[in-house]
């Protein structure tokens, strides 16, 4: 009996060491929830500009330049662009905060080989996607912005999922499906964007928190 116990403990240790050494497991579900909330807030702020109830251009000069067809780089003079930048930064900072807190709790290093691998593999499709979407602005293809964001983000997650918790793979696939559907409902871009970056993040973040972190907190409360 003891031998079996010892063996199963050894196997469990082997599995844990393999995970810890190859995957970034400190990713917190709360990071997903906070990023989702930031995205929803951003979408809400941007909504009136996109629907045309508020003037989208920051200054008249940009509006005129756009009217005469100089659309390239004009997006830098829109409110929507800067709302997007601020949303991205707050989402990034808040998700970093919760993941940092989880890694502290688990006594794991935040900046190691696994974190580096995760970030690099996440960043490559995202940077390419950002350049692509920016270039599309040259052709006034703004309607493809929302599906484009969702699709490139889905690819980035799928790519990075090999280096972190497995749920990220399913989040990536969900984003890809959503992005493809969004291609056929171009008028509803903002809704798809809010669903992909807001609702899906909150659902998956909540699930990951429930699965991995609920127990940590219960244990801490007992101790």
């Amino acid at each position, binding site marked *: 009996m003891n031998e079996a116990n010892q063996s199963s403990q050894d196997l469990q240790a082997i599995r844990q060491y393999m995970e810890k*050494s190859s995957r970034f497991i400190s990713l917190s579900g709360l990071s997903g929830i906070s990023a989702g909330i930031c995205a929803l807030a951003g979408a809400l702020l941007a909504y009136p500009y996109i629907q045309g109830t508020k003037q989208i251009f920051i200054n008249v000069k940009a509006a005129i330049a756009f009217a005469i067809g100089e659309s390239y780089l004009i997006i830098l003079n829109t409110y929507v662009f800067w709302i997007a930048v601020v949303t991205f930064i707050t989402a990034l900072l808040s998700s970093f905060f919760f993941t940092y807190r989880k890694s502290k709790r688990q006594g794991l290093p935040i900046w190691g080989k696994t974190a580096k691998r995760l970030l690099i593999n996440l960043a490559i499709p995202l940077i390419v996607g950002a350049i692509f979407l920016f270039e599309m602005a040259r052709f006034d293809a703004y309607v493809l912005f929302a599906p484009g964001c969702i699709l490139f983000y889905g690819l980035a997650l799928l790519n990075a999922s090999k280096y972190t918790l497995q749920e990220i793979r399913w989040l990536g696939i969900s984003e890809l499906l959503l992005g493809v559907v969004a291609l056929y409902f171009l008028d509803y871009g903002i809704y798809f964007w809010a669903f992909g970056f807001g609702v899906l993040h909150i659902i998956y973040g909540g699930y990951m928190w429930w699965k991995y972190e609920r127990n940590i907190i219960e244990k801490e409360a007992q101790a």
Partner: protein
Amino acid sequence: MENPIYNLNKLFDSRVRLGIMSALLVNDTVNFNDLKELLQVTDGNLASHTKALEEANIIKIKKSFIGKKTNTNYSITKTGEKLFNQHIEALEKMIGRIK
């Protein structure tokens, strides 16, 4: 019936060695500091285990310099891979047999 306990390798008898082997099985190379952090052991303890595994031709050690600091990287050998996989299999059989 063959008793799987014969396939349990004495070389992997400690928690530290299990950790070293597990990390090397799923990563091409792992450096000294990452292993130390993963296993939460002292320099001396880790070094003695890696040395023993190297002498048994289970792992390979490659030293290089990053500036003035030495960077020690470990990787698994073909023999090591085979032996450790056998060890895992034996552990699995041990559980199955007694259950």
